[in-house]
């Protein structure tokens, strides 16, 4: 076994061990609901996203503006740059029923939104 192979084997073993440790965590992801929000003219559309409570949410944030934005939610502890003309994915939850604020940090005056879990 040469050096590169050894590294590959060790890496694979570590990844498997990691996967095993967090199998429970990953299993949550199977019960996933997709949602999408679009940034246009520094506003979120829709400004209110309704999702079921108790499910993992896979939120796609698409930025139709040419300028970058930062999706930020203190309520959900999320923070992620959305480059101009690009999409990002955020996976979070399962959420308890309730409302969760989010903003576009770079344009906080106009870019406001709410995730409602029910």
């Amino acid at each position, binding site marked *: 076994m040469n050096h590169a192979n050894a590294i590959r084997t060790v890496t694979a073993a570590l990844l498997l061990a990691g996967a095993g440790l*967090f199998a429970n*965590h990953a299993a949550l992801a199977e019960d996933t609901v997709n949602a999408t929000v679009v940034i246009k003219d520094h506003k979120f559309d829709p400004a209110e996203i309704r999702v079921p409570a108790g499910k993992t949410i896979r939120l796609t944030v698409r930025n139709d503006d040419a*300028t*970058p934005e930062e999706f930020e939610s203190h309520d959900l*502890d999320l923070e*992620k*740059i959305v480059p101009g003309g690009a999409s990002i*994915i955020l996976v979070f939850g399962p959420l308890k029923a309730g409302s969760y604020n989010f903003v576009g940090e*770079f344009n906080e005056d106009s870019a406001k939104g709410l995730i409602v879990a029910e």
Partner: protein
Amino acid sequence: MLATALIVFRETIEAGLIVGIVLAATRGVAGRGRWVMTGIGAGIAGACVVAAFAGSIAGFMEGMGQELFNAMILLFAVILLGWHNVWMERHGREMATELRSVGQSVSAGARPLYVLAIVIGIAVLREGAEVVLLLYGIAAGGGTRAAGMLAGGGLGLAGGAALSTALYLGLLVIPMRHLFNATAALILLVASGLAAQAAKLLIQARILPPLGQPLWDSNWLLAENSIPGQILHALIGYVARPSGLQLVFYVGTLLTIGGLMYLNRRPVAVAPARAAAE
């Protein structure tokens, strides 16, 4: 304008306070200015590159590239800061306190300044990339609003730089023989805070479980977004609503680096000699 100033201020102090601590920690070391400037310069250049490729970075690893990239550079900085502290415990004290021969004083120059330069580079890169994106967005938007917002950015940058300078000058007031311990402790806390930031990103990327989220909420007592909250966030890693994993990373880093520092500690015969060695 004020919103822009606050964002830039927040990012500037996160990098600037680290620069201030490093400058205080390397007081009296020859050539430190060059290394620090190299670190800042490389960090700014890196921030522009990261900002330009933000789209591609986000696309890696099933859309979790941004989190992974940031978590990796944060953990790299944690390792470098830890290594620096341990190295100083091992060699720095004897170097500073004994100075028995010319041979040893030469080894003072062997202090891994490049490690600190890399840490500064990483800090500036990480915080700078967001500022570059923000300012680019404003400039690209144009209009009369842009001028005010860019002025706000300048204001935030100046404020952050002033605060970082104040920290540096404050640290210089500490007598030389205590400065070693003070900066080592600050670097240890900064490293632990950076590890907790990495934990947050690894949770967001769904790589590690949050282990309780949040563990507590002290936002009513000290809002993380307030200026004092941001300063404490940059200095000691204050988080108003930490998850269990963040606490594990924070305490784990504190104990690991602190333990290694303790194990590598060399007894000091004449403590005040460090001041004399200046």
